[in-house]
């Protein structure tokens, strides 16, 4: 191989593949003023040179009839080689008959022998190199580098163009999301996460094969697909799933799909994408299905949610949020003793009326507004407790909920400390309830946050125990001060032996951990007697009282004070 080219920075390199020395030297003479020039005598030499990766070749000038490996074979092999197929190829030929075959195999242009004048050759080489480089720049800008799918903005633009061009067709918008992707990324590593995303993108490409449409990676683990109406969504999701090589961690990933069927021109494409994402998000906690189609009900729900989000600041300012208290009684003594209360939020909206916490708490947990709302509850509950303690001199404390999002706040402990100090309370007066699902979702972060709170003196109650799927191992690792059994267990305690035995076992486990057991949802005398018999320490439920406002809770305190004498 004659490689007389000196590679200089900033100049593009042209590879001339030609066995005829005159033709080879002549072309090199024309090009060398503008480009670095490399030579190969046949297709095989050219492949070897390109595979050596010593040079970044911007263009290949290729003869057709050569010994060892001819130009047609080279074109075929180059087309199958990812590293080479992006390099533009101009074929050198004195015949017309090979043109069609060469074009079919990816050649971009021809230079006839005898050659055109040098200026024309130079102009053609320059034009094609510039065209291909521009195309690569555009490709880099418009594609997600990891998956090779479009990025969000180009997807929206190209979707719009596609829909305009294909007006007679109907399209659907799909949003595809991976559940708990961030956790999988943390647990199994970034490489695993990247593999999942690439496999998911491959799955989407398979779905689009044979259907008109395009796709993008819009966000970390969110993909959008514009696809001609008619594709079977269930099959599409299965196809995507089958591409994800989960290895030995099959239970980690759940793929959800949201769809907007029959999108139009009334809204921008991004609106339909958001709608499909809303449909996808709406089944985040619903494990009955992995596919949801956006409909009127979902639309109404979205508008309602938007209203709640928009009104939260006003609600805090105007004190529309009201803190209710559900009493907790210690039951293992001679008589039930009021020892605590869980502070619960209620929202009396001036126009929407009573808004269920089930509607706004998960919503605010998703967008982080829960921090504001929880803060409001902590302040209100602490203020009330201070009043009651001053008035009744009773040993009473309250428990407040701390959401998973709160635990991500780096100054959570300081925030709570300052509320306690402002109200002249101590950390023993306010117990923090952290739901079990928080532990299982972000184990490391939760461990860290809970340890910080305990270091600050706070007592931690594991809430909703048994409702999620935290492992027993987690219980050993997590520092807690009380175990609160989920109310669904109480429902079965009087119905079945198994139900009874389970509560008994959890109570035993709590004793082994040396922490008290709290059981919620006790509604009648029978349940009360049973939980007392199995050794639960504290009871919360309608049997004693439903959640009540501060005035009514104060009456219960007054009663307790009089009983204590």
């Amino acid at each position, binding site marked *: 191989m004659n490689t007389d080219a000196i590679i200089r920075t900033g100049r593009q390199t042209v590879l001339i593949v030609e*066995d*005829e*020395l*005159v*033709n080879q*030297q*002549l072309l090199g*003479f*024309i090009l060398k003023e503008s480009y670095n020039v490399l030579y190969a005598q046949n297709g095989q030499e050219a492949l070897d040179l390109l595979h050596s990766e010593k040079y970044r070749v911007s263009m290949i000038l290729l*003869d057709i*009839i050569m010994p060892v490996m001819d130009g047609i074979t080279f074109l075929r092999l180059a087309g199958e080689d990812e590293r080479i197929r992006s390099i533009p190829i101009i074929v*050198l030929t*004195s*015949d017309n008959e090979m043109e069609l075959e060469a074009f079919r195999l990816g050649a971009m242009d021809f230079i006839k*022998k*005898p*050659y055109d*004048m*040098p200026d024309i050759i130079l102009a053609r080489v320059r034009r094609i190199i510039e065209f291909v480089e521009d195309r690569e720049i555009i490709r880099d800008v418009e594609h997600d580098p990891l998956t090779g799918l479009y990025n969000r903005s180009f997807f929206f633009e190209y979707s719009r163009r596609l829909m305009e061009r294909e007006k007679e067709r109907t399209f659907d918008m799909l949003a595809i999301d991976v559940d708990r992707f961030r956790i999988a990324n943390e647990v199994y590593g970034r490489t695993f996460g990247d593999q999942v995303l690439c496999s998911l993108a491959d799955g989407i490409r398979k779905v689009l094969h044979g259907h008109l449409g395009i796709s993008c990676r819009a966000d970390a683990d969110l993909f959008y697909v514009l696809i001609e109406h008619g594709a079977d969504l269930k099959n599409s999701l299965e196809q995507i799933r089958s591409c994800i090589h989960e290895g030995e961690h099959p239970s980690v990933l759940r793929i959800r799909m949201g769809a907007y069927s029959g999108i139009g021109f009334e809204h921008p494409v991004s609106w339909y994408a958001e709608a499909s994402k809303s449909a996808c998000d709406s089944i985040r906690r619903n494990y009955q299905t992995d596919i949801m189609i956006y409909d009127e009900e979902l639309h109404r729900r979205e508008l309602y949610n938007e209203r709640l989000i928009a009104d939260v600041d006003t609600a805090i300012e105007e004190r529309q949020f009201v803190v209710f208290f559900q009493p907790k009684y210690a039951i293992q003594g001679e008589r039930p003793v009021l020892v605590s209360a869980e502070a619960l939020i209620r929202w009396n909206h001036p126009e929407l009326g009573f808004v269920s916490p089930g509607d706004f708490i998960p919503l605010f947990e998703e967008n982080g507004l829960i921090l504001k709302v929880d803060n409001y509850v902590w302040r209100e509950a602490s203020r009330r407790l201070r009043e009651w303690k001053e008035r009744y001199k009773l040993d009473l404390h309250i428990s407040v909920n701390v959401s998973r999002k709160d635990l991500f706040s780096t100054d959570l402990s300081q925030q709570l400390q300052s509320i306690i100090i402002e109200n002249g309370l101590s950390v023993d007066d306010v117990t923090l309830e952290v739901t079990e699902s928080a532990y299982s979702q972000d184990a490391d972060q939760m461990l860290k946050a809970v340890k910080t709170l305990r270091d600050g003196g706070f007592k931690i109650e594991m809430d909703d125990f048994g409702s999620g799927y935290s492992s027993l191992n987690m219980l050993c690792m997590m520092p807690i001060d009380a175990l609160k059994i989920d109310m669904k267990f109480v429902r079965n305690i009087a119905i079945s032996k198994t139900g009874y035995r389970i509560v008994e076992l959890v109570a035993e486990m709590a004793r082994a951990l040396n922490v008290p057991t709290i059981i919620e949802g006790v509604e009648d005398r029978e349940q009360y007697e049973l939980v007392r018999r199995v050794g639960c320490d504290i009871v919360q439920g309608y049997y004693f009282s439903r959640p009540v406002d501060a005035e009514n809770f104060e009456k219960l305190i007054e009663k307790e004070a009089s009983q204590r004498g």
Partner: protein
Amino acid sequence: MLTVETLRNYGANVKEGMARCLNNETFYLKMVRLGLSDANFDRLKTAVSNKNAVAAYEAAHGLKGSIGNLALTPIFNPVCELVEMLRGKTEMVDTGNLVDTIIAERDKLLKLDS
């Protein structure tokens, strides 16, 4: 000694050949000498005497490209004629005295250069 003038007198389209060499006379003459020593001349003779049509076509085709680029018209024209006669043939056809003409024209130039 080959010069631009002797090539012109020989019948080469010197203007065209020189233009392909960016009007660099030295380079043009260097390329002409390289072209005259092209192994395809000998390959062509051997292939024709062995009645190997495919090999003869490949050699003639190679010459067509290089001699054409040098604009050596008296060689180029019979080469083109020969290429068309042999194109797609697997059996040797009667090529008349084309090969002799090609070799004779090449030898004429070699003699001029001696």
